[in-house]
Each structure stands twice: as structure tokens, then as C-alpha cells.
């Protein structure tokens, strides 16, 4: 945004004035003090910054009116905003008007609300209005502050946000203070707020407690009413019903007791009579019993005597049968004994024959064993004597074969002599005799020479040029064969073969010896076997020594062992027959013994019984005698008739007593003693229960009365009414206060959130611009850090970092102005005017000159300086315009 021109008419002390500004550089407006510089700035700000309606009536607007003149004040500003070129004209106070004339990019002419809204819209589109307000808030007013201290941009933003155009406490401070009424800075609720909650809770608890206590009183009061309603009825019931009923029941019981006593007397009387009567009957009964007992005894004696007669006969018969059985038993015993003897003998025969047979078998084995041993010894001797063995035999065989082979070779190369007998012929060839029948032929090969001797002649055939080597070899071979034969002690191979065969047979015998011997000895030694032979011999002798008595047909058994099997089988069959005969005899004997035992037992039993009966008869007879004598004695003292009479009298007396007692019982039954007792008990219980109940109720009445009187005096009901009213009030207060607190909290949170966002958005661009301008100004790199409040915290230059307060006054001033300039650049698309009011007459010419130089070297923003000492800004190369007023 650039301001091109401002025109004032009738504004404060200025009747009319118009100033044109350099839109791209510095414009120094020169005017003496009190000539309206501040008015000019205020008017610009009012139009562009506050954007108030022309008809607004705020104090600032009212202040525009010239003193003592009731006229409208006109402010006209020509400016460029973005691509818009426009003139704003406002008349304040009298005949207010608001006119906006836009000349570019298109022409528009607006008035009133439309003019205002359109300007607001254009500004909002191209200018950061908040930042603009913040910048202009103090510009032109407080150069001293700007230059000397660090004016916090954020503080100005705060002030601008709150619209405090004239300073004073800003909105943020007020909101924070308001918030602080209820909350601590960290957002915790303060005591004022929590006290309300505590108050409500306290009253709720108190009301709850009071209600509970009143409910208790209500319950107890109800109970007391009930008790008091119940008591009179109960008391009446006790005195009018229960106690009279008990007395009547007691009277009935007393009557009953008298009757019961009378009955007891009658009962005793009856029991006495009954005792006498029973004694009389008893005496009579005893007499009758004694008489009957004697009769019974007499009958029994007769009966026993009668039984004894046949018993005697039976006993004698049994004695006879016993004797007979004894004889039978003896005979059977004898037969058994004979059978056993036969059996024993037959067994002995079998044993003897078996022993003989065993003896013969063992003896055979012994003989065979001994033969084997002898054969083996003979074979061993032959083997030992033999000079040939299998190896030598093999060698002889080989040597013989070699000789035959050589002989064959000699024969092959030798002439053959063939002799054919034309008649029977005999002779020898080389000493070997032969004999030929007619027609036979004989052929020999002549190895070296051959001598044929016939009866008639002797013919020697000599072979021509024999092979001497072969012959030599043959000689060697023959000598070798002869040598071997000599070693073997044989003539030739056939003898050697015979001798070898013999030797092998002997060795076979030797090899079989143990097998044969084992077979005969069967694990025993030869001596052992001999011992068993001896033993079996001894057994035979032993059997003979024990020979049983010879039977009639006894014969000497053959003990030589040669008895054939037939004898043994025969003997066994005989023995088995004897065994069976013995078994049969044994059975017969057992039967006879059993029969005898039976008859003996029966006989003895019968004899015992008989003796018993006799003793019984004796006892009975003695008893009968004693009873008879006793009865006679008793009758002598009291006759049977006396006893009968006494019984009749006693019975009569007892019946009379019985009758009296029954009459008493009937009277008692009519009274129903159980009922009388029950009625009395029930009446007594009812009376006691009523008394107890009454006692309890009276006690309860007292207790409740005391309690209610005590509690009633506390005024709980009114306390509750009061507490409930207070609670209702406290809840209302709490709700209202909470709502106010919540509004304060919400407002503060929103405000701070928006502020923080804004600060975050400004910090980086602001710092970058300050750094760029500083670096340009100082000709070297400078780094700047801004704090949260957008204040310069540190500056780093040439590697040295200094805090704000460590900087020189000049440096701080420079940075403050650069900060303001940076903000002015940031506040619009192409910055906003930076207005510096030197109205207070800044007095340090040196620093002012430096400031002027600084402004002259900055770029970008439009700068407007209002001063009464324009010379100070000459170095800036600024355009200086006079503020001409009229």
C-alpha cells in the first residue's frame, strides 16, 4: 500500500491542507511543532486504520472537529493498494459521508456502507490489517520509545487486536485478568470456584443427613402412635379377659385335685382286697396242683415201668448179634492176611526176576565195554607199528606214476616185439614168465634191450640208439620209488596200498572207541559200571535173603538172568492177580469191621438208655413218695374246704372295693382332667404373654417418647427446610459462576490460540527481512533470533552473539527501526507506509543523522517522516515537502 496524497479540511486546527508523498521513497514532511503534523497522522490512521464509519462517534472522531466550530471534518486520502488506485473521502461529525472513488483497474464510485465495505474488502485482500494497525498504533507518536527501547511488536499486535488505539491496558491483559478471577495461570480452578462446589456438596450431604434423621423420626413417631393406640386395648384385655379366665381355670383345677385324692384312697383299698383275694386263690390253686402232681407222677411211674420190659429183650438180642459180627470179622481178617501173603510173594518174584534181568543187562554192557577197550588197544598197537601213512602212501603213488610215465616214454620210442604162439607156449621175458595159448599174442616194447627166453631159445633184442636221458630219468625215478618203498617197508605200491588200508581201519577203530564206549557206559565210568553190576548182584542176594515163606507151589526162581521174559511176565500177571485178590479181601474186611462197629454202637447205646430209664424210674418213685407225704401233712393242718371258703369271702370284699373305685373314676372322667390342665396352662400363658407384651410396649413407649422429645428439640425439620433452600441457592450460584468461569476460560483459550498462531506465522518472515536489511546495511552477515513475543533476543555479527540488552544504544535503535520496517514490508503485498513522527523533536543530532542514513539505505517501503527539523534527514536524499496549512 502506498499513500500518494492526503487532504484535510476543517480537521482540528487545520482549516485546509494537502500533502503529496513520494510513493516509493522517503517523504519528509517539514512543519514546526504544533502545526498539525500529528493531526495529519491521526487523520490518515483514522481513515485507513480504524476504518470506522464516517458517522462513528468515538472520542477520536469527535476530536477531529475544530474547536468551537460545528462543522464536518473532511479527510481525503489517495492511495494505491495492490492494483487498485483509489481515493477515500470521509466527512466526520457534521453531515457525515463516506465516499470511495476507485480509478484503477476499473472505475468505481461508492458511498456509505458500500464505500466502507469495499475499502475494507480491498484492504483485507492486500494488507495484513492487524499488522498495519500494530505498526501505526504507535508510529508517529512514540519515536522515542521506538528508538530507545525495543517496542515489542507482539505487544503492539496485542494492542491493535484489542482496538486500544490510544494505548492503555489491552484486551489480552483484560481477558487474562478476567480469567485469573477463577483460574490460575496453569488453568487450575481457584478456590472461589471450588468453594462453590464444596458448598453444594456440603449442603447436599447435610440435607441428606437431615432427611435421613427426619425419616427416622417419622418412623419412630409412627411407631409411638401405634404403640399408644395399641396399649389401652391390651391393658383392657388383660384385666377384663385374661386374668378372670385364669382364675376360673384355677378353680376347676382345685376341684379336680380333691376328687383325685379321694380316688387314690379308694384305689389303695381295692388293691389291698385284691391282694387278699389273690393269696386265697393261690393257696387253693397250690393244693389242687399238689393233688394233680401226685396223680401225674403215679401215671409216669407206671408208664416207665411199662416201657422197661420190651427194652430188656431188645438189649439181649443186640448182644447176640454183636458176638456173631465179631466172629465174622475174625474170619475175614484171616482171609485178608492170606491174600496179602500171596501178594507179597508174587511181588518178591517179580522183583527178583527184574533184578536178575537188570543184572544180566549191566553185565553185557560191561563185557562189551571191555571188548571195545581191548580192540582199541590192539588197533593202537597196529597203528604205532605201521611205517606208512597217508603222506608216504601219496609219495609212493606219485613216484610210481612218475616211473610209469617214463616207462611209457621209453616204450614209445622203442621197438616192439610181438610174439604169437602158434601153439601153446611158455617162457619169460626179462625174467618175467609168461604162458601163451595157441593163437595168443604177446607184445613188448624194447626200451634198451629185451631178453626173451623160450624153451627153445633165448632171444635178446637190443634197441638201436636209445634215448639215454629218458633212461636216466627212469632210473632216477625208479630209485626214488624204491627209496620210498623201502621207507614204507613195502615192496611196491600195491603193498603200500594194502598197508595203508589196514592202518585206516585201525584208526577207524580208534576213532569209534569212545562212541562205542559211551554207548555202553552211558555216562558212567567203567568202574562205575562194574559197581552197578556188583550192586545188582547184591540186590539179587538181598532178595534171596528176604525170601518170603514158600507157598505150596513155590519153586526156585532162575536168578542167572537167563530167565526169559515169559517168566517175568508170568510173575507179573500172578502178582497183579494177587493184588486184586487182596483189594477184594480188604473191602470185605472193611465191610465186616463197619458192621461190627455199627452193632457195637447200637448195643452200647441201647444199654446206656436202658440204664438211664432205670435211674429215672428210681427218681420218680422217690419224688412220688415225698409229695404224697407232704400233701398228707398239709391236709392235716388245713383241709381243702377251708381253703375254698376263704377264697369266696376275699372275692366278695374285693368286688365291693372295685365298684367304689369305678364310681370315682367315672366322676373324674366327667371332669376331663386333661382339659382342665390345658385350659389353665393356656390361660396362664396368655396372661404371661400379654403381660410381657405390655411391658415391652410400655418400655418402647418410654424410649420413643424420650428420643422424640430429645430429637424434636433440635429443630431438624426447619434445619432441613433451611438447608434445602440454601442448597437450591448454592446450586444456582454454582451454575452461574461456573458458566461465567467457562466463558472466561473459553475466551482466553481462543484468544491465546489465535495469538500464538499469528506469532508463529510472523516470526520467520520477520526475522528474514530484518537479517536481510541488517546485512545490507552493515555490509556483512548478521544473524538474528526473535523470541516468542517477536522481540529481538540476540544478534550475531562477526561470530559474536549478543543479547538485546548487551547491544549498544545505536545498534538497538537500528534494529528497532529495521524491525518496524520489516513489519511494514510484511504488512501488505508491497508493504505499507512506515510513518515516523519526529514531533517530539528528537534532540540528539548525531543519532538522528545516523537514523536518517539508515532510512536512506533501506529499500522497499514507503517512508513518511514528520519533523520540525528537516535538516536531519537531508542525508537520506528524501523529498521534503512543507506542511502548508491555512
Amino acid at each position, binding site marked *: 500500500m502506498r499513500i500518494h496524497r492526503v487532504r484535510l479540511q476543517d480537521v482540528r486546527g487545520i482549516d485546509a491542507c494537502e500533502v503529496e508523498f513520494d510513493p516509493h521513497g522517503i517523504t519528509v514532511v517539514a512543519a514546526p511543532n504544533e502545526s498539525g503534523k500529528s493531526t495529519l497522522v491521526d487523520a490518515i490512521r483514522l481513515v485507513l486504520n480504524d476504518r470506522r464509519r464516517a458517522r*462513528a462517534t468515538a472520542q477520536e472522531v469527535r476530536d477531529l472537529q475544530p474547536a468551537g466550530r460545528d462543522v464536518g471534518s473532511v479527510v481525503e486520502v489517495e492511495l494505491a493498494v495492490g492494483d487498485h488506485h483509489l481515493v477515500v473521502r470521509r466527512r466526520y461529525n457534521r453531515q457525515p459521508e463516506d465516499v470511495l472513488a476507485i480509478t484503477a483497474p476499473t472505475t468505481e464510485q461508492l458511498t456509505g456502507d458500500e464505500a466502507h465495505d469495499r475499502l475494507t474488502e480491498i484492504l483485507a485482500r492486500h494488507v495484513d*490489517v*492487524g*499488522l498495519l*494497525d*500494530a505498526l501505526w498504533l504507535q508510529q508517529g507518536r512514540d519515536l522515542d520509545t521506538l528508538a530507545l527501547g525495543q517496542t515489542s511488536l507482539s505487544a503492539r*499486535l496485542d494492542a*491493535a*487486536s*484489542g*482496538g*486500544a*488505539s*490510544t494505548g492503555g491496558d489491552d*484486551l*489480552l491483559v*483484560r*481477558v487474562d485478568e*478476567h480469567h485469573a478471577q477463577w483460574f490460575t495461570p496453569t488453568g487450575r480452578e481457584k478456590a472461589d470456584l471450588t468453594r462453590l462446589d464444596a458448598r453444594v456438596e456440603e449442603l447436599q450431604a447435610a440435607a441428606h443427613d437431615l432427611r435421613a434423621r427426619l425419616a427416622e*423420626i*417419622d418412623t*419412630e*413417631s*409412627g411407631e*409411638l*402412635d401405634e404403640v*399408644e393406640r395399641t396399649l389401652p386395648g391390651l391393658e383392657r384385655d388383660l384385666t377384663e379377659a385374661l386374668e378372670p379366665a385364669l382364675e376360673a381355670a384355677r378353680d376347676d383345677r382345685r376341684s379336680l385335685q380333691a376328687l383325685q385324692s379321694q380316688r387314690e384312697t379308694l384305689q389303695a383299698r381295692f388293691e389291698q382286697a385284691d391282694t387278699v383275694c389273690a393269696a386265697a386263690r393261690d393257696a387253693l390253686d397250690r393244693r389242687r396242683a399238689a393233688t394233680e402232681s401226685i396223680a401225674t407222677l403215679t401215671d409216669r411211674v407206671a408208664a416207665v415201668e411199662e416201657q422197661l420190659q420190651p427194652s430188656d429183650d431188645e438189649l439181649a438180642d443186640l448182644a447176640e448179634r454183636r458176638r456173631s459180627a465179631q466172629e465174622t470179622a475174625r474170619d475175614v481178617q484171616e482171609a485178608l492176611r492170606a491174600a496179602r501173603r500171596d501178594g507179597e510173594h508174587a511181588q518178591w518174584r517179580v522183583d527178583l526176576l527184574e533184578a536178575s534181568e537188570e543184572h544180566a543187562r549191566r553185565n553185557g554192557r560191561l563185557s562189551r565195554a571191555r571188548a571195545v577197550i581191548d580192540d582199541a588197544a590192539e588197533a593202537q598197537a597196529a597203528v604205532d607199528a605201521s611205517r606208512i601213512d597217508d603222506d608216504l602212501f601219496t609219495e609212493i603213488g606219485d613216484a610210481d606214476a612218475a616211473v610209469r610215465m617214463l616207462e611209457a616214454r621209453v616204450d614209445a620210442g622203442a621197438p616192439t616185439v610181438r610174439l604169437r604162439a602158434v601153439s601153446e607156449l611158455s617162457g619169460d621175458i626179462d625174467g618175467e614168465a609168461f604162458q601163451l595159448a595157441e593163437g595168443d599174442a604177446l607184445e613188448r616194447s624194447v626200451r634198451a634191450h629185451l631178453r626173451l627166453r623160450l624153451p627153445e631159445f633165448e632171444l635178446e633184442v637190443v634197441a638201436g640208439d636209445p634215448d639215454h636221458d629218458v633212461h636216466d630219468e627212469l632210473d632216477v625215478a625208479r630209485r626214488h620209488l624204491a627209496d620210498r618203498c623201502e621207507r614204507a617197508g613195502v615192496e611196491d605200491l600195491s603193498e603200500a596200498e594194502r598197508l595203508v588200508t589196514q592202518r585206516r581201519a585201525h584208526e577207524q577203530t580208534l576213532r569209534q572207541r569212545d562212541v562205542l564206549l559211551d554207548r555202553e557206559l552211558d555216562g558212567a565210568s567203567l568202574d562205575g559200571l562194574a559197581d552197578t553190576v556188583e550192586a545188582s548182584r547184591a540186590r539179587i542176594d538181598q532178595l534171596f535173603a528176604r525170601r518170603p515163606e514158600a507157598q505150596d507151589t513155590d519153586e526156585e526162581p532162575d536168578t542167572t538172568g537167563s530167565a526169559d521174559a515169559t517168566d517175568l511176565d508170568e510173575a507179573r500177571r500172578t502178582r497183579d492177580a494177587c493184588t486184586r485178590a487182596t483189594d477184594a479181601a480188604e473191602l470185605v474186611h472193611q465191610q465186616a469191621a463197619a458192621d461190627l462197629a455199627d452193632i457195637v454202637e447200637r448195643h452200647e447205646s441201647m444199654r446206656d438208655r436202658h440204664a438211664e430209664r432205670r435211674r429215672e424210674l428210681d427218681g420218680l418213685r422217690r419224688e412220688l413218695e415225698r409229695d404224697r407225704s407232704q400233701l398228707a401233712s398239709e391236709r392235716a393242718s388245713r383241709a381243702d374246704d377251708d381253703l375254698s371258703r376263704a377264697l369266696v369271702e376275699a372275692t366278695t370284699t374285693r368286688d365291693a372295693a372295685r365298684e367304689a373305685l369305678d364310681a370315682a373314676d367315672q366322676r373324674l372322667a366327667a371332669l376331663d382332667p386333661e382339659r382342665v390342665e390345658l385350659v389353665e396352662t393356656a390361660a396362664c400363658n396368655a396372661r404371661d404373654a400379654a403381660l410381657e407384651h405390655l411391658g415391652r410396649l410400655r418400655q418402647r413407649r418410654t424410649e420413643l*417418647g424420650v428420643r*422424640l*422429645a430429645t*430429637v*424434636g*428439640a433440635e*429443630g*431438624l*425439620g*426447619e*434445619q432441613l*427446610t*433451611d438447608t*434445602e*433452600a*440454601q*442448597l*437450591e*441457592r448454592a446450586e444456582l450460584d454454582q451454575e452461574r459462576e461456573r*458458566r*461465567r468461569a*467457562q*466463558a*472466561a476460560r*473459553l*475466551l482466553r483459550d*481462543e*484468544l491465546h*490460540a*489465535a*495469538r500464538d*498462531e*499469528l506469532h508463529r506465522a510472523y516470526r520467520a518472515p520477520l526475522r528474514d527481512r530484518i537479517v536481510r536489511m541488517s546485512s545490507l546495511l552493515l555490509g556483512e552477515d548478521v544473524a538474528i533470533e526473535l523470541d516468542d513475543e517477536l522481540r529481538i533476543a540476540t544478534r550475531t555479527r562477526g561470530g559474536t552473539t549478543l543479547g538485546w540488552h548487551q547491544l549498544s544504544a545505536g545498534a538497538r535503535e537500528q534494529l528497532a527501526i529495521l524491525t518496524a520496517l520489516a513489519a511494514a514490508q510484511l504488512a501488505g503485498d508491497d508493504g505499507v507506509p512506515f510513518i515516523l513522527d519526529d514531533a517530539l523533536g528528537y534532540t540528539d543530532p548525531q543519532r538522528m543523522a545516523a537514523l536518517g542514513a539508515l532510512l536512506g539505505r533501506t529499500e522497499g517501503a514507503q517512508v513518511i517522516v514528520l519533523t520540525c527539523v528537516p535538516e536531519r534527514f537531508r542525508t537520506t536524499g528524501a523529498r521534503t515537502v512543507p506542511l502548508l496549512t491555512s
Partner: protein
Amino acid sequence: MVRFLHTSDWQLGMTRHFLIGSDAQERFTQDRIDAVGTLASVARDRGCAFVVVAGDVFETNQPQRRTLERALDALGTFDVPVYLLPGNHDHQGAASVYRSDAFIRRCPASVHVLADGPLAPVPGVEVVGAPWHGRRPLEDLVTRRCRELAADGTTRVVVGHGQVDTVVGDHDNPATIRLAELERSVADAGVSYVALGDRHSALQVGDTGRIWYSGAPEATDHRDGGPGTALVVDLPDGLLDDAPTVEVVQVGRWTFHRVERSLDSDGDVDALLADLDGIDDRARAVVRVVVEGTVSLAQAAALDDGLALRTERFGALELPDRHRDLTIRPTAEDVAALPLAGYAAVARDRLLERATRGDGVEAAEASDALALLTRLADRDGA
């Protein structure tokens, strides 16, 4: 002719929440005791032969000692016999205030509790009570009491307490007084007058002219209206057919008002405030402000300020619930007038958005926050 004073429902010891927090409660309490003194003066001035109090002399059966003492002092100012009927608040149960030592010991000789049989204040006249014995009677006590009486030429005043069916319509409650039966019994028994209590404003019940509510001497609630009343009753001599003459006498000072307005414009707020300013004896007026409608922040603020300014002038000023009774819709005008810019304007716009978005708690809170912002921002503004 026999003249007597009929009153009821003194409810001494009552606390009202809307009076707490100022000296109004003490004033209210004292005025209610003073009303008893006023009744004594009326009885004296109008030549009443006796006084019947038809129930609820005390707010509770367990009053504070102070209340009881002041009540007994006030009862001592009557020159004629006074008959107290135990009502539902002070029934004759075992824990009844009338059976307490404190009451019995200090009860003036001319004061009688209508707990048992009939009492005769003057020859030829009987006062018959139908007292409550518990909090919840299971029958219509008044009618039953009338049925027990026989027409024998005696002039009888029956004193009862409770609601009449034709007035409240509560037919299910067994204790409700059945008017038709009561009127029949009254005719049968030759009862001259039935003095009823429990209703806080005077009312003739039925058309026999014999059954009346006296109303409370001091109003206690908005439904009572006010000011409080008592009845001066003249019973004609011996002529049963003639109805008694009943005069309603004003004895109370407190009034209860309901100021109701629909607020839609600045003028409505002003009118409401003018209504309030038009109320007389404001120190003894309890005013309930009832509003509805939708207002801007500025209107709401004007209403708040106007009410706050007047709160102390009244016995009690019951304020409307801002968000329940009234919809506050912050408008663009509400906030545009504020000199806000920058982040404050951002915060304002966000709150405005939340306040206008819905009707919930959030919107209400945002409205409150905006109202606060308006107040704080406008402190030194236009």
C-alpha cells in the same frame, strides 16, 4: 351472631431459596411473625370471639427453638381464644410440635390445639377439629369428622385441612376432601361453617357459602399471588338455613410477581425493565422474570445489565436462565462494532461461528465467551 377469625397456613419457619443472600429472608421471617400480630389486631378490632387456624401453623413439626419461641410470643398477643389445627406440615403424630415439652410449657392459656374432642369458645358454639395425625391420612378427615356429628341445635365450626377434589382434581388421593360428601354431611350434621386450610389464597368452595379456605396471611410462593388474607366470619344466630357472612381481610405485605415478556427487540428489553420498575413495595416483592425469544449479544447484555442494576431493589429477583429460556444469537453487528483486529478478530470470528452453529452447550458457551469479549473489548470503546 357469633364472629370469629378464620386463618391458616402460617408456616412459620419457612426459608425461601430466592431470599437467601440478602437481608430479605430475615425480613420475610419477621413479616410472617408480624402477620400473626396483625391477625391479633384484626381479631381485636373486628370483635371476633375466637380465632381458628386451619392447619400448618408451623412449616415443620421440628421447628427451630427460635421459631417456636417467636411463634408462641406472637400467639400471646391474641385477646381471644385461638384454636390451632394440626395440618400436614405439623400433624399431631407422636413427634408433633404440639406434643413437645417446649410448646406445652410455654403455650398461652388462650391457645388450644384441636387434637381431641370439641371445644366451646362461647356458650352454644362448638369448634370441632379434624386434625392430621400423620403425613398421609388414608381418608377424608373433614367429612368423617362431620359425619360423627349430630344435628342437635349446637352451632358448630368444623376446622379442617387439605385439598378439595373440585379444586385440585386429585381424586386418587384418599385424603382429598370430597366436596359433595362434605356438603351432604355438613347439611346432615347442621354444621354452620367449615374452616379449611392448605390453600394459600382465599377461596369459597362449593356454593353453600359454608365452606371456605382462608388463604395464608403472608404469600409464600408465586402461585399464592398475594398479599395474604384472613376471613372474618359471622355466624347468624340459630338460623341454620342462613349462610354465614364472610369478609376477606388483607393482612399480608409480601407479593409475588411474574414478569413475563417475549424478547425480540431492544424495545422489548426496555419494556421488561419498565414492568419491573412499575412494581410497588419492591423490598417485599418477589419477582420472577420469565423471558423467551431470541436476542442479540447486545440485547442480552442490556437485559443482564438492567436486571443486575435492579436486583438489590427487590425482595428477590429471580433471573431467567440465559440459555434455557432465551436464545442468544450473536450477530455480525454484535461483533463488528467491536474495535477488534488481528488475532482478536480471528478468535472473535471463531467464537461467533461456534455460537451460531448450533443450540448445544458448546454454542451457549461460545455465546457467553462472545458476550464477555464484547464487554471487555468495549470497555473504553464507543
